[in-house]
């Protein structure tokens, strides 16, 4: 249903209905939201949250723009592109402090660095910013073939290379006996936040709701990473029949060990935190490489309004 208006002063008994559109089928990478949902953090905050799953063609921004979802997920670079196209959306919180994307190779593949991929065929989502980024920054050319979101071709072809999430594909590959290696994109310098965005006018009209959502989500994420993930796992497995306990544990371990959610506190990173300086640096670099045609003002795609400077977790 259409995301409509809700009560002015929502309470747990009279909650505000909020729709969150995720970027893929239910998976541990969305764990914090499911945790918040299952443990009633949203409800406590006076929100009645529905999580819509995505997929390879989720078109979440269309849903946010047409007000069929309040919040959706994406990478900071994509949200900058939205701004460039005059889409009135702003990023309000981060889900991942570091980009979990990587390039998956067989362990014995001769390529050791990104430069070695020059001229190689890589299965990826055509048109994503990271492709142009590594091509221009390292002066290489990739032969991109469209990602089919499968792994069978990788398994069948010992020289196959494909885009992956460090939290995801390596698990299945290893389960099928393939030895794999991952070149993390964050090591190439391409390291955008993954975060949540919403319509600008919604953030302006109902900052209270956004604030409640951000706070409850951060609470959920913190609990998912630090506490017992079982409630989220149960909810995810119920929605996505392919989520086995083994896989979910693996993915969460990656999130924890690689500090993808919490970041490194010594660099001022924290759950949910968006650092304006990192945003500006990303934008400038994308602009310098000609990927962003103009230096879109920060305010057009991002607001720190809902995040505490110290990244403290909400009470």
């Amino acid at each position, binding site marked *: *249903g259409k995301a409509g208006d809700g009560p002015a002063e929502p309470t747990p008994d009279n909650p505000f209905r909020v729709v969150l559109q995720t970027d893929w*089928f239910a998976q541990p990478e969305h764990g914090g939201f499911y945790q918040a949902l299952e443990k009633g953090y949203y409800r406590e905050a006076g929100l009645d949250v*529905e*999580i*819509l*799953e995505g*997929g*390879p*063609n*989720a*078109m979440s921004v*269309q*849903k946010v*723009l*047409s007000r*069929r979802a309040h919040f959706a997920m994406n990478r900071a670079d994509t949200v900058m592109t939205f701004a460039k196209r005059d889409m009135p959306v702003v990023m309000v919180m981060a889900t991942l402090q570091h980009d979990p994307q990587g390039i998956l190779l067989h362990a014995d593949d001769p390529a050791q660095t990104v430069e070695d991929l020059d001229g190689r065929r890589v299965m990826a989502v055509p048109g994503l910013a990271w492709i142009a980024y590594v091509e221009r920054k390292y002066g290489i050319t990739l032969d991109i073939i469209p990602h*089919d*979101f*499968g*792994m*069978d071709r990788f*398994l*069948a072809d010992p020289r196959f290379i494909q885009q992956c999430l460090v939290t995801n594909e390596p698990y*299945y590959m290893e*389960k*099928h006996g393939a030895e794999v290696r991952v070149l993390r994109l964050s090591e190439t310098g391409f390291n955008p936040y993954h975060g949540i965005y919403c319509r600008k006018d919604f953030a302006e009209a109902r900052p209270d709701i956004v604030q409640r959502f951000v706070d409850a989500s951060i609470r959920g994420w913190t609990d998912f990473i630090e506490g017992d993930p079982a409630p989220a796992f149960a909810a995810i497995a119920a*929605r*996505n*029949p*392919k989520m086995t306990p083994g*896989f979910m544990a693996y993915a969460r371990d990656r999130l924890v060990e690689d500090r993808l959610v919490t970041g490194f506190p010594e660099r001022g990173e924290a759950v949910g935190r968006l650092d304006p300086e990192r945003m500006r640096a990303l934008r400038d670099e994308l602009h310098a490489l000609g990927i962003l045609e103009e230096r879109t003002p920060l305010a057009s795609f991002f607001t720190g309004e809902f995040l505490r400077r110290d990244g403290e977790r909400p009470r």
Partner: protein
Amino acid sequence: MNFPVTYREYIAWPLIFGAGLIALWYAVKHAFALPAYTLPAPHEVLAALRDERGVLARAAFATAKGSLTGFSAAVGLGFALSLLIAAFRILRIGLYPYVIFMQMVPIIATAAIIVTWLDAGLPSVAAIAFLIGFFPVVASTVAGLHSVPTKQVELFRLYKARPWQELFLLRVPSSLPYFFTGAKIAATLAVIGSVTGEIFAGSTARGGGLGFMILIYKSSVNTPGIFAATLLCCILGFLFVGTVLLLKRMLLRKWHDSLDTDFNPL
């Protein structure tokens, strides 16, 4: 070609060919030593079907709903549009080119628009299934509405039949053999359309269909699962085609002058 056919043959030959195809399948698998994640063996597919029967049954049901809605809309609206095109010369000359034009818009492009206007889930899925099946119905029916023997049209004009009478009492019955060909094509496309819809515009919160399951199996390298879901797609499609053929038989058997009508169930 013209000796009477026993019904037993209609069971026997498909079974023989089916067995042959399955043998071929095993042969290919062994000749190239293909692993299950590239080409699962038939029994592995059946095993997947058994293991996943709960999920797949629900998914098949969801896909059936999407296909049925889309298919009905394609046949109904396609037929209606064909009537309009046949009835109004101006539409035929002026509008029909754009109908063909529309048909050539790739699904991936339409999906974006559809999702903007419709809710994700069943409405979008059905809309895409509809779009895929729509044109074959229109193209076939329009061809049929225009293949009426001259003499019969002249008869109607002599009797000063009103245009709508010419349409409904002459052109429509006369076009039925063509219409059913179009409906048969639409029936085979209905399930494909629904699956494509689920892939491009599916939302999964409301019980994803077989297309959704194929994506899920794909992202967990469950190739036998993909084949099992595919098998269900085919079976579902067969039910649609079967319904169309049954209807055709019932309506045309009495009068359609074709020696083979009786021998050609498909």
